[in-house]
C-alpha cells in the first residue's frame, strides 16, 4: 500500500432546495485516495458533482460534510499547493500569455528576482510549446494555445497537486490529441500528482492510472475505481492496438451508458462506499486478483 498523499473521507454536498424541505444531496459518502505521482481521472454524467468535488479539492467550494486531507493537512480554502486548470481557460485577457504565467509565478514567489521569474516563465511556456507566442494576448491565441497557457500557469507554481477540470472539453479532436500527449510527457517527467475530470473515455484511458466512475446524481457515489493496467509508456498512436484497451474501454462505456443510472437506486450487493471496489477490466479474471494485490 503506497503512501496516501490525498485522502477524501465521507465527502458530501447538498443544497437547500425549498425552505423547510429536504436538501438535495448531490453526492455523499465519497471516499477515495490518491497516491503521490498518480494520475487519477473521474468520469460521470453531468450533474453527478464531479466539478464540485474538484472545487472542494481546490478549496474553492465547501463540502457539506466530510474532509479532504492532503499531505497530512486538512484542505480548508484555496492554496498554492494545488494548481488548477479551469474548464474555460480563465486567462486574464488584458495580460499576454507570459504575463498570465508571471502573475502566478509572482504570487508563488513574491520576493523572487526578475531574472528568476523570467526563467521560470520561459521554462513552462517552452514546456507547452508556446515560447514563440509568449507575448500575445489570449484573444490572439487559438483555443488550444489558451488552454496550454492555462496548463503552463498551473505547472509554473510547482504545485504538490494538479487539478484539471475538463481542460480539453472545448478543443477539437486534433488539438486535444496533441495537448494530451504533451500533458502525458510533462507528467511523466515531473512525476506530478493529478486529479482530472473528463467526459472522454479515451482520454481517461490514455492519461490516467486510475479511473473513478461516478454514478448519476442526485445521491451520486463513486461506484468503482478502474485500474488502468495498460503499460505506463502508452501513447496515443499505439494504445488502441493493445488488447486490454478495448476491454477497459467497453467497461467504461458500459458503465456510463447503462450502469451509472441504476447504480444510485440499486447499488450492487456488498457495495461499501467506504471502499469502492477496485476493478481491472483490462486483465483476464485470473490475473485480476494478482494485479490488485500488487496495486494495493
Amino acid at each position, binding site marked *: 500500500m503506497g503512501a496516501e498523499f490525498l485522502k477524501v473521507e465521507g465527502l458530501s454536498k447538498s443544497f437547500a432546495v425549498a425552505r423547510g424541505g429536504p436538501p438535495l444531496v448531490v453526492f455523499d459518502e465519497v471516499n477515495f485516495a490518491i497516491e503521490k505521482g498518480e494520475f487519477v481521472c473521474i468520469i460521470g454524467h453531468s450533474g453527478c458533482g464531479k466539478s464540485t468535488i474538484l472545487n472542494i479539492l*481546490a*478549496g*474553492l467550494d465547501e463540502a457539506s460534510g466530510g474532509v479532504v486531507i492532503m499531505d497530512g493537512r486538512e484542505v480548508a480554502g*484555496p*492554496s*498554492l499547493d*494545488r*494548481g*488548477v486548470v*479551469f474548464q*474555460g481557460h*480563465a486567462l*486574464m*485577457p*488584458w495580460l499576454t500569455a507570459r504575463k498570465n504565467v508571471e*502573475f*502566478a509565478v509572482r*504570487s*508563488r514567489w513574491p520576493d523572487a528576482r526578475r531574472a528568476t521569474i523570467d526563467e521560470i516563465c520561459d521554462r513552462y511556456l517552452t514546456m507547452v510549446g508556446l515560447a514563440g507566442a509568449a507575448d500575445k*494576448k489570449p*484573444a490572439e491565441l487559438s483555443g488550444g494555445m489558451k488552454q496550454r497557457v492555462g496548463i503552463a500557469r498551473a505547472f509554473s*507554481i510547482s504545485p504538490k497537486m494538479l487539478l484539471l477540470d475538463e481542460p480539453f472539453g472545448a478543443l477539437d479532436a486534433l488539438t486535444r490529441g496533441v495537448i494530451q500527449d504533451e500533458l502525458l510527457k510533462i507528467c511523466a517527467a515531473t512525476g506530478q500528482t493529478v486529479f482530472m475530470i473528463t467526459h472522454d473515455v479515451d482520454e481517461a484511458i490514455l492519461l490516467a492510472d486510475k479511473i473513478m466512475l461516478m454514478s448519476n446524481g442526485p445521491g451520486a457515489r463513486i461506484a468503482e475505481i478502474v485500474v488502468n493496467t495498460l503499460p505506463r509508456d502508452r501513447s496515443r498512436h499505439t494504445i488502441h492496438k493493445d488488447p486490454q484497451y478495448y476491454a477497459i474501454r467497453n467497461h467504461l462505456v458500459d458503465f456510463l451508458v447503462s450502469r451509472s443510472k441504476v447504480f444510485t437506486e440499486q447499488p450492487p450487493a456488498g457495495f461499501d462506499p467506504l471502499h469502492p471496489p477496485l476493478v481491472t477490466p483490462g486483465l483476464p479474471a485470473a490475473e485480476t486478483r494478482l494485479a490488485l494485490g500488487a496495486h494495493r
Partner: protein
Amino acid sequence: MQRSGRLAATLLSFVIFALFVAVWHVATLPTGGAPVADSEYSKLVGSAAASGQKSAMPSPKDVALKLWEHVKDPFFVRGTNDQGIGIQIAYSIGRVLLGFSLAALVAIPLGFVIGMSPLLYRAFDPFIQVLKPISPLAWMPLALFTIKDSATSSIFVIFICSLWPMLINTAFGVSAVRREWLNVARTLEVSPLRKAFLVVLPAAAPTIMTGMRISVGIAWLVIVAAEMLVGGTGIGYFVWNEWNNLSISNILCAILLIGLVGMLLDQILARLACAVSYPE
C-alpha cells in the same frame, strides 16, 4: 471600398454643411421692410434691425467674422464683464475638470467597495436610485446656501452630477468581474490588495471608463447652465451676458465652441477607454 466610402461620407458632410450655410444665408437676407416708427425700440435693438432692412439674426458671414475676431484674440481681459472667449472657456473647462476629478476620487473608490460587497451594493442602491435622477441644478440653492461662494457652488454641482454615472458603473463593473478570474486569484492565494489592483481593476476598467465618459459629457452639459445661474465667469455666463447684449453672433460662436470642446473631452476619454479595453 472602405476608403472610398469614407471619402464619400466626408464629401457628403461638406455638402450638408454648404447647404445649411446657404439656407441660413438666404433666410437672413435683408428684406427691405418699412422702418419702425418707435425710436425707443430702434435705439434698443440697433437701427438696422429696427428698420427691418436686416434681420436681428446674423448672417453666416457675420458669425464667421465674429468668430475670427474671437479666434484672433481669445485671451484678452478688459474688465470683469469683457474677457476673451478663450478665458471664459478655460474657466468652464477648469471647473468641469475640478468637479469631475473630485467626483472620480470619491466615486471610483466608493464604487469599488460597493461593487466588492453584495451587502453594501444592496444597502447603497436605494440612495443612488433616488439621488441619481435629481437635476444637478436643483442642488444649486443648497450649495449656495451652505458654501456661500458661487464659483465653488458651480464646482459642487459638477461634482454631484459627475458622481452617479461613475459610481454606478464602477460598482457594476467591479461586481461583474468574471468569477473564474477571481477563482484564479484565490487559488494563487493573491492578497486582497493585489487582487484589487491586478485583477478587479483591469477587469472593470472598461466599464469604469464608460462611466467616466458619461460623467464628463453630463458635466459639460451642466456647466453651461450652472454658469448662467451663478454668473461671473465661464462660457455659460458669456452666453447669458451676450443674450443681454443681444449679440446673437457671439452666442452662436459660443454655441459652436461649446460643441467643439464637448467633443474634445469625449474624444479624450474615448481614447483612454480604448487603452484599457481588452478583447475577450
